[in-house]
């Protein structure tokens, strides 16, 4: 925020026939430079941690980087757009598999984010009322968020096992819902398994954020609405949801990015080779680069993914902030 405000101050200082004396000017320059100087270490680290690997990744995507060159990747021959054309040639197996994986990821993300948001919001709204055991319930709800991802997903993997898993035990042995025990970690059901774990892991975050957002809505709005005869649903629609809009904007975006890029869940659940039905793009790219040692193609796929996410995020931000900006002006 301060960064965007800064140039305005600087520009204001430039014009004017009766400019400040040289001494005052150096003082001002120093004052303007100071924040940048203070920002410099962070900027450098940010470059080092984020930007440099990203640039390297982009360079790699234009190289023919296989096991013959990984030791000295600078010497790998240039591939031009070969890696990209291979990735987007949807008639050939590599491109087709990438496209499948992309669709799987889109479906998975939409469902997972939607369910996380719905569950989180419902729970947060209900938790607004004071009742006995509320604190305890709130704590319980946050457990999935507090658990280490790896431990939690491994436990799910055990529960989804065909022969000894708890899920089949309950669905098949106890409730008799299926004719025979189902496979959850291979085949088509693996998508459902992945979705369940993802929602289980993700909704407490939505719950937490929405709960925080709800604290900012003045109680008297509800009281006034109640006096005017608004029921609970109407209050939700007219007060709660509109007031939560800025919170939800950030929440949905963050959940979207996390879910779309989720690597840990499928990796721990399925290992290096995910079933086709649950072949999320992150793990697909991992396999394309690290398991089949085709780092150039993997990098190209990563860049394509980055571009896609940038476009989606950009469009989303423009769409959602339009209302707010016009309100600010």
């Amino acid at each position, binding site marked *: 925020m301060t960064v965007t405000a*800064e*140039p305005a101050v*600087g*520009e204001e200082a430039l014009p004017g026939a009766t400019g400040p004396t040289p001494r005052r000017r150096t003082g001002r320059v120093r004052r*303007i430079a100071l924040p*940048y100087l203070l920002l410099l270490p962070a*900027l*450098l680290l940010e*470059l*080092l941690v984020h*930007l*440099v690997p990203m*640039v*390297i990744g982009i360079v790699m995507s234009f190289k023919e980087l*296989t*096991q*013959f060159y*990984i*030791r*000295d*990747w*600078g*010497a790998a021959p240039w591939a031009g757009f070969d890696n990209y054309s291979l990735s987007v040639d949807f008639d*050939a*197996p*590599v491109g087709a*598999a990438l496209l499948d994986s992309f669709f799987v990821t889109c479906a998975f993300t939409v469902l997972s984010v939607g369910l996380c948001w719905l569950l989180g919001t419902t729970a947060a709204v209900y938790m607004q009322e004071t009742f006995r055991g509320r604190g305890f319930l709130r704590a319980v709800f946050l457990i999935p968020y507090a658990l280490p991802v790896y431990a939690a997903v491994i436990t799910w993997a055990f529960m989804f*096992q*065909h*022969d000894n898993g708890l899920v089949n035990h309950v669905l098949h042995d106890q409730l008799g819902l299926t004719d025979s*025990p189902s*496979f959850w*970690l*291979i*085949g*088509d059901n693996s998508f459902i398994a992945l979705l369940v774990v993802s929602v289980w892991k993700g909704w407490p975050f939505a719950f937490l954020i929405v709960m925080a957002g709800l604290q900012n809505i003045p109680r008297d709005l509800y009281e006034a609405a109640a006096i005017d005869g608004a029921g609970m649903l109407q209050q939700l629609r007219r007060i709660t949801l509109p007031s939560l809009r800025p919170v939800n904007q950030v929440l949905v975006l963050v959940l979207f990015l996390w879910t779309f890029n989720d690597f840990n869940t499928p990796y721990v659940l399925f*290992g*290096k*080779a995910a*079933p*086709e039905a649950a072949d999320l793009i992150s793990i697909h790219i991992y*396999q394309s680069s*690290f*398991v*089949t*040692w*085709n780092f150039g193609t993997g990098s190209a796929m990563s860049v394509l993914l980055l571009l896609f996410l940038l476009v989606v995020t950009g469009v989303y931000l423009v769409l959602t902030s339009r209302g707010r900006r016009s309100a600010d002006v």
Partner: protein
Amino acid sequence: MRRTRAAAASAVTVSLLAAVTACGGGSSTEGGSNDSPKTLTYWASNQGPSIEADKKILTPELKKFEQETGIKVKLEVIPWSDLLNRILAATTSGQGPDVLNIGNTWSASLQATGALLPWDTKNFDKIGGKDRFVESALGSAGASSSDPAAVPLYSMAYALYYNKKMFADAGISGPPATWDDLVADGKKISKDGKWALAAEGSNPSENIHHVFVLGKQHGADFFDADGKPDFTSDGAVAAVKQYVDLMAKDKVVAPGNAEYAQNQSLQDFAKDKTAMVLWQTAATTLKAHGMSDDEWGVAPVPVQSGSPGAETAVNSMVAGINLAVFKNTDNIDGATKFVKFMTSDAEQKTLNETYGSIPPVKAAQEDPAFNTPALKVIRDTLAKSAAPLPQVPNESQFETAVGTAVKELFADAAAGRPVTTASVKEKLSEAQQQMPKK
């Protein structure tokens, strides 16, 4: 102001990039140096029941080496699942260990990176000569056209482990010698929640090992003479179909095995749920699962017919661990000494006996410790009927691509979907097209 900021940012980026590309080149000393002659870093693969167990087994041996040479060895035991990625990372950064274990099927792939010290005659002479090693083990240490990229350390081969009690209960007198026998016996055993054979259907590497052997038995290699992938030959398709059919058609493998990837096979075997398992050196793990040595027997992996020809008699891959030296080590002499120590007759005997593997060093192999009935089968297999996996640079990709195709076919079989010659061929063709073009 804005322009200054942009200029500053780009200047920083450029300088950082320059710095990064300079050190990312991996241009460290070729062929190693002796800059730090008193220390060595050793990455050991996880061989024993746990990483802690490995540390316990290896530490006294490394102390012995330190006493002999004054070189301190820093040990890190790395789980299988991480090993290849760690090696790749070390290769890229040039910041690897001095000496490391590699799975012998990766030899040619890692050799292609150029990061490993080639074992030419001169280097072999420093550790007692090439002739000390069993030929088949050397065959899995790199492409045949060049000097080995590593030295064999532990050798293993597949064998058929069978549960004596389950065989007796089903009225079967001895282990099957051919696949037809196995299926016939298997049908007698596979009922009432019991199954004949175990498979690790979701483990691509495990799938590859079996499919490779069956491929050899059908006269297929998966790579042609030029090292190009050839996954869809009739023999290769027949091999994959035969393996998956054990579940899909013959129904001697439990459908649940399609999702096994964590060695659950051995637990089922020890719990009398499965009567047979194709495994390399299972003794230690079976004991850990509470099975005593007299409860199981070992036989060679079945072949196609009673008296197959030389090539088609292959019934195991040459499995094992190799010891490699990173080319850019700072202690090349120490690393060579360490390889000499680890492959010395005495150490070979100690280590292989502890891990239940076979020494790839001929002299050590003669020790009576390796003459137990189980190890004798494995020894004979290694000597007579084991073949190394294709020693081509794309071996690692082949493992993933075909291993995953078999995993998906198993998933189909488990779900009751038909597995046909056409569907097998289609999956293998997809796998082949995913292979790098060069």
